[in-house]
């Protein structure tokens, strides 16, 4: 067997493993992608000020907090849509003005570098 073929087989095997892993991950995520039952006549902020005060404080001090980009912008309304871990896609609707250089830092999922609430860089 040629080296390349070996590589190919190895990679194919790995891909299968990863895809099945992915499937599991998704299955897990689905469980988590549900917001606990809440009173939908109050806003996200009213409740989260009490249940996750640190996160709200981080957010308030962030640029998003200053502009009042609320929880729902990334996490959905909690009823029709809810994302426990928001995707980078949401960011891109606004952050079109300062394109991220794909070669700098190399890490280009927004939340890999930016803390989602304080928006500060990790590290």
């Amino acid at each position, binding site marked *: 067997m040629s080296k390349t073929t070996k590589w190919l087989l190895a990679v194919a095997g*790995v*891909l299968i493993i*990863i895809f099945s892993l992915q499937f599991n991950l998704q299955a897990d995520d689905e469980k988590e992608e549900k917001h606990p039952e809440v009173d939908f006549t109050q806003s996200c902020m009213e409740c989260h000020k009490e249940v996750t005060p640190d996160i709200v404080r981080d957010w308030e001090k962030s640029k998003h907090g200053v502009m009042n980009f609320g929880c729902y912008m990334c996490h959905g309304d909690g009823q029709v849509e809810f994302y426990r871990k928001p995707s980078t896609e949401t960011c891109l609707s606004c952050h079109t003005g300062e394109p991220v250089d794909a070669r700098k830092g190399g890490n280009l999922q927004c939340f890999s570098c930016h803390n989602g609430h304080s928006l500060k860089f990790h590290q």
Partner: protein
Amino acid sequence: MPIAGIVVMTDEREIQTVYNRLSAHELITTYGIHQDNYIVAVIETDSLRQLEELIDSLRNSNEAILGIYPAYINFEDEVFDNSKPVIEDVQGNSPNTD
């Protein structure tokens, strides 16, 4: 000069340390932490043999590394003249190096 794109599955608690170590390696460029326990990285070596050796050594060097999965290899330099605009991926018809 082969170039390989790899996914490094890592213990979630140790991932930042592993990430920093990989980033510091002169043959490795890191591309972020994903889904809490995966690191995406690219390895550049002089030969395929060196590539395999490096992957093996990484696998055995740190308990926090749970697995290394190559997803892409390019070794056109070993076959083609650089001027030819050929980029291969594992799913395409890779040139046979033997």
